[in-house]
């Protein structure tokens, strides 16, 4: 800790725990994005999987492994986020029938009217 000085046994334990967490975070591969120092992120990978939210290591979408639009389609196919997506099992099995290749045809994905 740099800014807080622990003064009793409980505070020293918190300090020790946080130091241990920091040390472990540098070794393990699952880390919180907010923490400093920042984890290593390969350029081109999406850091967030919420549709419409993806950005690459530069803050844009150009370097993503697959385009942002692809995720919307993936949600449909794999039910990754079914609540916001058309339901391909029961109600909208044909929603993506006009979209043969998501990277090219994503504009053909239409709005669903239940």
């Amino acid at each position: 800790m740099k800014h807080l000085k622990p003064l009793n046994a409980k505070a020293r334990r918190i300090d020790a725990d946080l130091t241990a967490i920091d040390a472990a975070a540098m070794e393990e591969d699952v880390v919180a994005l907010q923490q400093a120092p920042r984890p290593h992120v390969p350029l081109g990978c999406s850091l967030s999987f919420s549709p419409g939210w993806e950005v690459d290591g530069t803050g844009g979408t150009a370097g993503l492994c697959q385009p942002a639009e692809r995720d919307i389609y993936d949600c449909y196919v794999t039910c990754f986020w079914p609540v916001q997506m058309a339901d391909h099992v029961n109600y909208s099995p044909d929603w993506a029938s006009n979209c043969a290749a998501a990277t090219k045809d994503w504009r053909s994905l239409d709005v669903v009217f239940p």
Partner: protein
Amino acid sequence: MTAPLSHRYRMGEMHRFGAAGADFVYMPQAGAIFALDEATHGVLARLGDGPVAHGDLVTALVDQGMPGSDAEGLLRELRQVRLIEAEHVVARAPVVDTPPEDFPLQALVLNVTNQCNLACTYCYEFGADKISTQTGKTKYMTPETAKAAVDFLLESAKGREAVHITFFGGETLMNFRLLKEAVAYADARAAELGKRVTYSMTTNATLLTDPIIDFLAENAVGVTVSIDGPAEMQNARRVYKSGKGSYDVILPRLKSLIAKHKTRAIAARVTLSAGVTDVVGIYHHLKHEIGFHEVGFAPVTTTDDGHDFGLNGDGMSAVLSGFHALSQEWLEYALRGQMHGFSNVSETLSELVVGTNKSHPCGAGLGLLGVSPSGDLSPCHRFTDADEHVMGHIDSGVDQAKRSDFLTRGHVGAKYECTSCWARPLCAGGCHHEAFVRYGDTGHANLHYCDWIRQWTDRVLDIYGTLAVRNPEFLERFADRKGLS
């Protein structure tokens, strides 16, 4: 680039205090104490006006000359310690978790008799607020009961290496013979089991004799004397049934006790009541004129109407200002590296050194049980012989249903008023017995002394902070000496 943090922060739960020109914080969720630096002070000051966005805090810090990565690090540190938290964070509801049924016993209080040769007017056992129902019950504990209690303690202690027995009354020395037998038996049994037993007792000192004092010294029995101060205060309420005061009887006995018993600290325990509120005067009399090693004070327990002995608002104000003056003396001693005998400060400071965070106000019903002369178990000595609070018997063991009920209601998480109080880690709602006398429920928070507890805790935090700045070695030695480090 990672997604920018869009949180807005507010201040977490904390009690801030300043001492010796420095800034500190006490964290009720953990019991932790931290010293704050200027940057932290600045962040908290900004949050004092309401929630602020992460980015705005970082910008403000950068504008003050802090590198951006350091600003992020600072906010992260404060977030992890929970000095700041995201605006939308919902505090977890307090959890009332009762301890396991086989929680190892640590101490027993043996009420060796419920008889007393004094008739102190404020006594919780015999006075106006008594809850015990002694009619028809055993008056003196028998050796068989005491031995069974010792066996019960050693067995229930499970893996503990050391256990403690407190002898209590009535007046403990009215059954001194039993005390001697119990000590001999417990020492022998403990030796067989490879455990240790330590002892203490409470007495009004009227029946102390030289052979008794020798026995207590030889066996390192800690002695606490119930005494209210100089003659006029002691004789106000600590009286014989005839109304005669007890001061002249105990004075020579106390001098002898203190002169001869060197194996344990001899403590005075003062009950403050109407007219007996001169804390400083009482302390100096007991410490310097009689020679007690430590002096502790507690306000009398009474119902709301207080009878003629309860402390009213003025009385409590006098007590508080006395506590304040005496704690200032304590601090001055500590700054010189000396121990002062005002044990109320030492007790609270011990808990702060560790960072105690209590689920229950005390060990009653947890690691400690009371045993009545007939062998009934109760949460502590104050509930002895009260039918409603019997919690099993030494022959049949603890009544787990009653114990669980007692501990569930007594849990700090079950006391709604305590959830927003920063002093709850140390207080946990206060004495179960006092709550029962005052509110008819052992699990009721003792709301009548909340302000008092907070003021007192704040006062001892002030001492803690002052020592942390001006004599940190003393705090370390204090922890070592109390076995807290």
